[in-house]
């Protein structure tokens, strides 16, 4: 993998001289702020090849991009010309009017983009998506077979039955893992599971929360049944921890992010027995519902509002270079690319299956992040057995209502 990166970087450097002419920008500043994972590294590396002459390209790839993006883009001129956003961060940026509409730029420089890549809000293109991500099921086919389970689970009820079989066969004490670290991760697991019920999070057209109902109770109970088969430390498990546990061979069934697929399947950090028997399938459904219990996420390019039109154009052109089909073909297994030139691979099978089965996207609602925070903080008491599901949901509702009032979403 490391060697791969070096060859890639080398390839980009070699491309540099020809690409400069290919970008067709004569001047402008490009500064990119984004999360940090392989697909984004490929995109920003390719965008950086546009530098030269009067053009500068800088990128800041950080896990903490969410914490600095609002302040950095509120400044005028903005500190970054582009943010690589997702469902949730785009809403946060739009709430304060920090990103611009891309209609004119797409019309001028957006040949070759798929119409499905456009993120439009009220008819205006606000972002151009390039990759898709979702949490889905990772299974160990060898362990399942040893426990007498012959098919990969398709529902969470099957997952529970398989976990029980594995445990009673004495193969593993804690075969299941979800990203259940208290906070954002745990909130995301509730959101995913609740999505599988098909119910809404809010009363339609309002900011009033609507999870305190039978669907919410069922969701909590399902999460509790699953963590009963998880390591007792599950409230500290983030996606790095679950990936490490998986690669150490300690898990047989896990719900993890699609972007972890490539790293789990490669021949680094794990044994042949684990990686060759790992199967990636779509997110399970549950409770006789058709919709997979997962949320679809996109990663896409948004351009700051508080910058000159010249910089915006230069940034857009450089980013188009970053998500061009050449880049997609060279980095096919990084993510589920949405642009032309993408070939589905084993590492992305789970995300594709989840999307094909009709999973819903993470809601692009201004107050979703506030609910997500309340969920992550309040439901751990129930999972640990110190309060009832009804009490936990009432706490979520109360915490959300207080926070949403402070944010101005509720009066």
């Amino acid at each position, binding site marked *: 993998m490391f060697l791969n990166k070096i060859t890639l970087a080398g390839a980009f450097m070699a491309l540099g001289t020809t690409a400069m002419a290919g970008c067709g920008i004569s001047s402008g500043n490009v500064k990119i702020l984004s999360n940090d994972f392989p697909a984004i590294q490929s995109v920003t590396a390719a965008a950086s090849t546009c530098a030269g002459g009067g053009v500068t390209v800088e990128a800041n790839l950080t896990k903490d991009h969410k914490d600095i993006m609002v302040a950095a883009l509120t400044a005028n001129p903005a500190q970054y010309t582009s943010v690589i956003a997702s469902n*949730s961060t785009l809403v946060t940026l739009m709430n304060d*009017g920090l990103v611009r509409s891309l209609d004119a730029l797409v019309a001028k420089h957006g040949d070759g983009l798929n119409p499905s890549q456009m993120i439009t809000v009220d008819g205006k293109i606000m972002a151009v998506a390039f990759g898709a991500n979702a949490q889905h099921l990772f299974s160990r086919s060898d362990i399942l077979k040893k426990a007498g389970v012959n098919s990969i689970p398709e529902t969470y009820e099957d997952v529970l039955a398989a976990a029980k079989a594995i445990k009673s066969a004495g193969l593993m004490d804690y075969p299941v893992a979800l990203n259940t670290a208290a906070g954002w991760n745990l909130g995301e697991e509730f959101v995913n599971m609740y999505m599988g019920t098909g119910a809404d999070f809010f009363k339609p057209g309002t900011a009033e929360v609507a999870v305190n109902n039978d669907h919410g109770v069922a969701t909590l109970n399902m999460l509790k049944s699953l963590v009963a088969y998880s390591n007792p430390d599950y409230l500290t498990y983030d996606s790095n921890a679950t990936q490490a546990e998986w690669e150490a061979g300690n898990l047989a069934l896990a719900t993890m992010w699609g972007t972890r697929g490539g790293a789990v399947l490669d021949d680094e950090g794990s044994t042949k027995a684990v990686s060759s028997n790992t199967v990636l399938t779509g997110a399970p459904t549950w409770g006789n519902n058709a919709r997979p219990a997962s949320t679809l996420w996109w990663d896409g390019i948004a351009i700051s509002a508080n910058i000159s039109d010249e910089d915006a154009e230069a940034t857009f052109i450089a980013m188009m270079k970053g998500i061009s089909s050449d880049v997609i073909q060279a980095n096919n297994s990084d993510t589920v690319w949405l642009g032309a030139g993408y070939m589905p691979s084993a590492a992305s099978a789970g995300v594709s299956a989840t999307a094909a089965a009709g999973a819903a996207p993470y809601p*692009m609602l201004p107050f979703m992040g506030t609910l997500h925070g309340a969920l992550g903080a309040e439901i751990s008491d129930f999972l640990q057995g110190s309060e009832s599901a009804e009490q936990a949901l009432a706490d979520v509702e109360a915490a959300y209502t207080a926070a949403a009032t402070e944010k101005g979403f509720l009066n």
Partner: protein
Amino acid sequence: MKNHTFFWFILPSLVTMMLFIAMPIGSVFIQSLHIEHGAVLTEVKNCGPFGCKMEVQVDVEATSELKKAKPLGKFNGFGTYNNRNHLAVVELSQAWNDSTNWGTYFRKIYNLPFYRALAFTLTYTFVVTPLVLMLGFCIALGVNSLPKNIKGPTIFVSLLPMIVTPLIGSLILFWMIDAEGILGASLQWLLEDPNLSLKASPNLTWVMLIVYGVWHSAPFAFIIFYAGLQTVPADTIEAAMIDGASRWERTRYVVVPHLVPLIVFITLIQLMDNFRVFEPIVSFSAQANATSLSWIIFNDLAGGEGSFFGSAGATSVLTILGVAVLLIPVLFRTWRDFKGKVV
């Protein structure tokens, strides 16, 4: 010193204190009285790679006019202080009415985020501070009686927990106490309980954080006590020895009274520091079982998407008040001693 001279003498520090302490606290307080403007919501059609959907969005233009007129936000008085996520005035009285005994009342209070954090913060403060004083004093006495040639290295090693960055130190401990780490696995073996997990149970998490706190702060008390021990008058000790005082009696009746001002000083600093406990909660991923006031502030500012400046401001002001209340007894004592000396 004449009043006039005194004024010019302390003017620079007064100005810097105004600029860098009083004014930021004032601005935090003002921010805590405000909430964001009511967002103007509209329903629009959103489309993306996964299809189209009618969804509610913030009407940026309408909202930005409100923001431009009043950038601080909407005045809310003490509304944020009293809401459910802070002092929870309404919830407290409701819990009182709904409860038949003290047990249920306290359980209901403990369910509120602010009081839950306060419970851990106070427990941590009042357990760690005396333990740090005692342990630091014992290490100082021990090191003081070592032969000269090994004193230096011992002092260096004893100071290590304080030298290591708190975030790094607690992260390393976090890995060590993992069920597969050296400490976690040893404990499982010692107690013959293969399911023992220090991270999973609320009680053990508290114990773990407190042990970490003592480990981290003891060197601070140690080095101050050690310095103090060098000033204990040798002739008083000798006199005590001639009078037949045992080592324990010499420590109890000569050394400890001599070090009282240092004990007050360390208590003061430790109360303030421990009330603001924060790093170990983040590094130990302990937020499900233990939160502190400082952690709540951090979570409001950087926990999710968007920041809650009003909430963070309110908790900050409450933390300052808490520190003030804690310090009053100690400051009162210092003041009394000071007065006693002057008169």
